[in-house]
């Protein structure tokens, strides 16, 4: 059954058709939610919300783009909204979270990850978490998710020029933090 038929059936309330559409997108939704939120707990909330929102809004889906692109957009919006609400409430660094008992996923020993890489990724995510959502989201989409400027502009609903300037600014801020952090880490290890 092709995607168009599945979408049509899902729009009529067929949950089985929606399941067939959503299943191939699950990993992608999970990945982008995790990349943007930076922790497993928030990523899980956002990914669940993304799927449920997609089901609720399937009636509004015109089919002009692929279903995966559409659901990707929902995942980005949901994650950005969560980051914004967190940012409004309180800005908490990952260091604070770690101290309060939060266990970053990158600490979990993965079979293909070396301990060294895991530690580097954890620190980098900490540094990213200190950026504002306006800077963090475009930078992750560009550098981690490998999206083009135009795609990011479309996903976030902002001008391409704004995307470029935000990414440049985010890079500048992150480099400063990251260089200091790396230098400090180097001194500590010596």
């Amino acid at each position, binding site marked *: 059954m092709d995607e168009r038929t599945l979408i049509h059936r899902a729009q009529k309330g067929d*949950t089985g058709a929606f399941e067939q559409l959503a299943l191939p997108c*699950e990993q992608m939704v999970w990945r982008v939610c995790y990349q943007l939120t930076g922790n497993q707990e928030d990523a899980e909330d956002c990914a*669940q919300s993304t799927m449920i929102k997609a*089901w609720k809004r399937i009636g509004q889906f015109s089919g002009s783009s692929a279903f995966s692109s559409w659901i990707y957009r929902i995942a980005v919006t949901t994650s950005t909204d969560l980051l914004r609400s967190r940012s409004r409430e309180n800005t908490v660094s990952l260091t604070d979270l770690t101290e309060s008992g939060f266990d970053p996923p*990158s600490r979990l020993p993965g079979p293909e990850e070396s301990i060294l890489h895991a530690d580097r*990724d954890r620190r980098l995510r900490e540094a990213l978490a200190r950026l504002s959502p306006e800077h963090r989201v475009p930078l992750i989409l560009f550098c*981690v998710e490998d999206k083009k400027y135009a795609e990011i502009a479309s996903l976030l609903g902002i001008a391409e020029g704004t995307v470029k300037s935000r*990414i440049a600014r985010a890079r500048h801020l992150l480099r400063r933090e990251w260089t200091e952090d790396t230098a400090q880490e180097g001194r500590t290890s010596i």
Partner: protein
Amino acid sequence: MTCEAYRELLEKELSGEITESERADLLAHEAACPACREEHAQYLQLDRDLSHLASSVPPMPEDFHRRYMEKISEESHPKGKLRLSLPRIGRALAAAACAIFLIGGTLMTRDTLHRRLRSSDYSLAQEAASGNGLRKTISAPAQETVMTFSTADAGAGVYEMAYMAEEAEMDTADEDDVYTGDDAESHIKLIRNASLTLSTTDFSQVLSSLQELCKTCNGYISWQSEYENYSGLKRANLTLRIPQEKYDDFLSRTQALAQVVRREETTEDRTASYRDTAARLESQKALLERLNALVSEAGDLKDLLELQSQISDTQYRIDSLTSQLKGTDDLVQYATFSITLEEATRQTEAANPSLTLGERLMRALQYGLENLGDFLSDMLLFLAAALPFLLPLALLVVIIVLWARRRASRRKD
């Protein structure tokens, strides 16, 4: 090239928008500037580290698929499809409550609003209606087409209020004063008032007959007003003063002129208060005589001036009491008739069997449209009258809803 210009080129390089010639300039500057070279290297390292994050994603939770599909199934198959959801019931109930409030409020308040908005004397008449006196109300035969207006009561109300004030004054008077009247019959002081609402199709004829009847009974018109109501029907309010002895005669003949929709009669016994006033008058007169006698015996100028002052005050009280007695005598001698004469509505005429069914249908339709218009205008009036209550209520509801939402969102977070 300055380091500042270099950074612009570096930005282009990082975003992948640099040209070949610009890259050559960039590399040339880096060869000469170790700091900028280092900065470029840091950026490249950062990009590599960031791109490495793409592969450092923890595995998706095992129950991820099951959880969202369960939620979706619940959403798409709520318990009992035919059952109305709570928000839907709530909306229906809210709409029903609004409709009941609007229609019920309009029907319940339309008469009161009409009276209050059309007669400035209404509040006075209402207050007077709760005064002393013997009052009997006689219900007239049902007349579904005529709306009862009792603005004519206002005239009698003013009188009644004046006498209520007198009574209050009387209560404080000297209890030892004794009435020394002439004959026993004149002691009974009854003030009779009648309020009538009449309905007729021949408005002008009945109005002139009423005026003529008033003259025949040696009475007079104290107040008269005529106007047309919102349906184009005429209405007249009259206050007539009729000699006491002609009261029953006038009442029976008036009732014969048109259909009586409402009749209310009041008999007020003012005998006791009249006696008190008369006794106080006699007492003041005796005091005046005594004071006049003392004037001739006054020794010096100071005493004389004091006496003159007391004589003046006593004379003033005598005049006031005499005026009160005359006023009561006037009300006793002349009964007050407050009459509202209304032109009969078209529905009464529509019931006339001489009209064809088509004509009656047309008239019924016209009547219905007129009533609809009246009802809508009444509804507007009701809303305007209720606005001072509704606005604070609405404000309160908005505050509660905002508070509840905020609380709910906090809980959710």
